[in-house]
C-alpha cells in the first residue's frame, strides 16, 4: 500500500509557521524619506528573499540581460547570475508549465509575465495545473509559484495588451490573488507571496511602476486578506484594488471638498477577500461603491456586491453600485481609453448617486 502523505508535509508546515511569525510583527511606518519607485520596491522584495533562499529563481522574458522589459529586475542578473535570473524565450505556456514542475519538485519559482495579457496563452497551465495540483494529487504536491507582471489598461495599448485578469482568474479555487496599489504594499505583499507555499498571482500595473513612495529600510511582510483603510469617512464605502484605488483617493478628496466623506478600502488581495472590513464599513455608512478595472459581468465587483448582499443586506440604505471599465473591448484612442476606464468623475458620480444626490 502506497503510504499517503499527511495533509501538509512537515517542511511546508514549518514554512507556514515561520511566515505566520513574520506576519505577526507590527508593520513599520508608511511615513518617511526613503522614497523609491514601485518597480524598486518589487525588486527589493525579490532580492531580499533570493539572498535568503537559493530555491528561489526568477524566470521570464527579458528579465536578465535586458534588465527587465520594465526594469523591475534591473541589476539582478549581476547579483545572482544567469542560473537564477533566467531569460526565457517567448513561450508563456512552456515556462509557466516549467515553473509548475520545478515547484512540485521543491523549488520556488518567480515567473514574470511581461504582461498578464500574455498569460492567456498559458491559461491551461495557470487554470488547470497551478490551482489544482494539490487537490488532484490528494495533497501530495502543491505549486508554490509566484506569477507576477503588469495587469490592466491605461497606456493606449489597445485591446490585446490591456487585460485585467483578476476577474477571470479569481473564478478558480486554489490560488491567491494579490493586487497592490502603491510601492509600500507592493514590497510587503510580494515578500509574503514569495514565502507563501500556495500559488500566488501577483498583479502589478505598468502605469504604476514609476510611482514613488516611502518604503522603509527594514524588512516587513504584509498579510493577505487584510484591506487597508486608505481614507476615512462616514457617508459611503468605496471598495477598490490595484491602480483604481488611486482614482478613488482623488475622488475622496474631491468629495471631501463638498462635505461628503467616504471610506476607501484598498483590498490588496482579492483572494482572500477581506469581506469583514467591507462589512464593517458598510455597517457604518450604509452605502457601497465598488471600483474595479475589469469588465462588469461576473467581475470581482459582482462578487463583492454579492457577498455584501448575502451578509450585510439589512445595513444597506441604497442598492450597491459599481464602477467598472465600460463593457467593450479596450480602445486605442486616448480619449476613448480614458472614457473606458474607471476615473474619479465616475466614482464621484456613483458616490453621489448612492447618496441620492444625483
Amino acid at each position: 500500500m502506497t503510504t499517503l502523505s499527511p495533509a501538509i508535509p512537515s517542511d511546508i508546515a514549518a514554512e507556514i509557521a515561520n511566515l505566520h511569525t513574520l506576519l505577526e510583527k507590527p508593520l513599520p511606518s508608511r511615513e518617511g524619506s526613503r522614497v523609491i519607485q514601485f518597480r524598486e520596491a518589487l525588486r527589493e522584495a525579490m532580492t531580499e528573499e533570493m539572498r535568503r533562499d537559493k530555491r528561489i529563481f526568477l524566470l521570464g522574458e527579458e528579465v536578465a540581460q535586458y534588465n527587465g522589459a520594465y526594469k523591475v529586475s534591473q541589476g539582478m542578473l549581476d547579483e545572482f547570475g544567469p542560473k537564477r535570473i533566467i531569460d526565457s524565450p517567448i513561450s508563456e505556456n512552456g515556462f509557466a508549465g516549467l515553473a509548475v514542475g520545478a515547484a512540485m519538485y521543491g523549488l520556488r519559482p518567480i515567473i514574470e509575465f511581461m504582461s498578464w495579457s500574455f498569460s492567456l496563452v498559458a491559461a491551461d497551465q495557470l487554470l488547470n495545473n497551478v490551482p489544482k495540483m494539490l487537490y488532484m494529487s490528494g495533497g501530495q504536491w502543491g505549486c508554490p509559484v509566484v506569477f507576477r507582471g503588469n495587469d490592466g489598461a491605461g497606456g493606449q495599448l489597445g485591446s490585446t495588451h490591456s487585460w485585467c485578469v483578476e476577474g477571470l482568474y479569481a473564478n478558480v479555487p486554489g490560488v491567491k490573488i494579490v493586487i497592490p496599489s502603491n510601492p509600500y504594499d507592493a514590497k510587503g505583499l510580494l515578500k509574503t507571496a514569495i514565502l507563501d507555499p500556495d500559488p500566488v498571482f501577483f498583479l502589478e500595473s505598468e502605469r504604476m511602476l514609476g510611482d514613488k513612495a516611502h518604503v522603509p529600510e527594514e524588512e516587513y511582510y504584509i498579510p493577505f486578506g487584510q484591506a487597508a483603510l486608505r481614507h476615512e469617512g462616514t457617508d459611503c464605502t468605496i471598495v477598490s484594488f490595484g491602480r483604481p484605488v488611486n482614482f478613488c483617493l482623488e475622488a475622496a478628496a474631491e468629495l471631501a471638498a463638498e462635505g461628503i466623506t467616504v471610506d476607501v478600502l484598498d483590498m490588496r488581495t482579492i483572494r482572500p477577500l477581506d469581506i469583514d472590513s467591507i462589512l464593517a464599513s458598510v455597517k457604518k455608512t450604509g452605502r457601497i461603491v465598488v471600483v474595479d478595472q475589469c469588465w462588469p459581468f461576473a467581475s470581482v465587483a459582482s462578487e463583492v456586491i454579492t457577498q455584501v448582499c448575502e451578509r450585510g443586506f439589512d445595513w444597506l440604505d441604497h442598492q450597491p453600485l459599481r464602477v467598472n471599465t465600460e463593457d467593450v473591448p479596450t480602445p486605442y484612442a486616448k480619449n476613448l481609453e480614458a472614457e473606458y476606464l474607471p476615473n474619479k468623475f465616475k466614482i464621484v458620480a456613483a458616490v453621489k448617486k448612492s447618496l441620492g444626490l444625483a
Partner: protein
Amino acid sequence: MTQAPSAPASATAFRPLPKAAAPGDYGISAKLPDATLIKWLRDMMLIREFENRCAQAYQQAKIGGFCHLYIGQEAAAVGTINSLNHDDPIVTAYRDHGHALARGMSADACMAEMYGKVTGCAKGKGGSMHMFDKPNWLFGGHGIVGAQTPLGTGLAFAARYEWEVMGKSVTGGPAKKKVALAYLGDGALNQGALHEAMNLAGLLDIPVIYIVENNGYSMGTAIERGTTMAHDLRKKAEAYGMEGAIIDGFDVMKLYDQFKPLVDRCRENQRPAFVDLKTYRYLGHSMSDPQKYRTKDEVDQYKNNDSIDRMASYLMNERKTNGKPTLSEADFHAMQAELKDICMKSLEFAENSPIPDASELYTDVLYNPQPNMSPMRDYTHGVKNPLL
C-alpha cells in the same frame, strides 16, 4: 526544398509492424541478472492483469469517468522506468496505470483511486487519469494532452538546479545528477506545449527525455493524419537541438539496450533527448471506442508480436541458467497465479475501502488556507468561517 511527406495512409490502411529485432540479439540487457529480467516480465504481466481487471470493473460501473488502458504498451513503461534510478522524477499523460505500477505503486492504491476511495493514491480526488505517487517520484498522470511536457521539463530543470545551483537536494541531502522522463502520446506531438517545452530544454540544457509512446493513433486519428514527418519524428528533436532516437517498444530488452545508454548520456551531459517509442494499444482508446479506424487483422498482427510473450519465450526457451531455462514453466504459472491474486485482491480492497468523508471535499485546496478565501460557508480545509 522539403517535400511534404508521402501521402498519408488512409485511416483503415493496414499499419505494418516495424521490423522485429531478432530474438537473442540482445546487448547490455542480456547481461543483467536473471532476477532483474524476471522482474521485468512480472511487471509487464502485472500491468496486463491489472488492466484486464480494470476493464471488468469499468464494465460493472465500479470505475467512473474516462479509463484508458495500457494493454499492449506494457514494455514501454517497464523498459524505460527500469532504466532509471528510483529518485529520477517522471510525469506522464492519462494512460497512466502502467507507469504507476511499474514505478512501484501498489495495485491496491491504484485500483482504489479508480473506485474513488479514500485509500486511493490521491484519496480518490484524481481518478484514472491522475495517478500521483510521491514516494515513487511519479509526478502525475495528466489529463490535458501535452500539458505534462512542460512539467517534466520543470522537474528536470529543478533536479539540475539543485545539483548545480544549490549544491544540495531541496530536501537537504546531497544532490546528484538526475534525468526526468516526460511521457506523451503521439497525439501530443501536435500540442504547442511540447514544442515550447522542447525548445526550452534545448536552450537551457535541461536533462529531460521526452518519450513519445507512439501507438500510431490519437483516438481515431492515425499519426500520419495528424502529424507531419511521422515517418521520422527524430527530425523534431533535431529542430530543438537534441538527440532523437527511434526505439522498438515491443521488446523490453531491445528497448533497454537502446534506452539505458541514452539515459546515461543525458544524465552525464545534462542534456535533453527525444524518443519515438514504437508501441501499440490492443484495446480501444478508452473504454468506449468502437474502433472503426483500424482492422482486426492489424490488431492481431501486433498481438502476435506481443512483448510479454516475447519476454516469456526468451526467459523460458532461449535463455539458460545452469543449463536449464532461466524461468521454468512451473515458476511462470506460479507467477501468473500470484499476479492474478494480487489484482483480484485489489478489486476487493477497492470495493471494501471507505469512500472519502464529505469533509475531504474541502481539504487539499491550499497548503495555507486563510479566512475569506471563498464565499462558501466551509472554505478550504474545512475550517469554518468565523463570521458565519
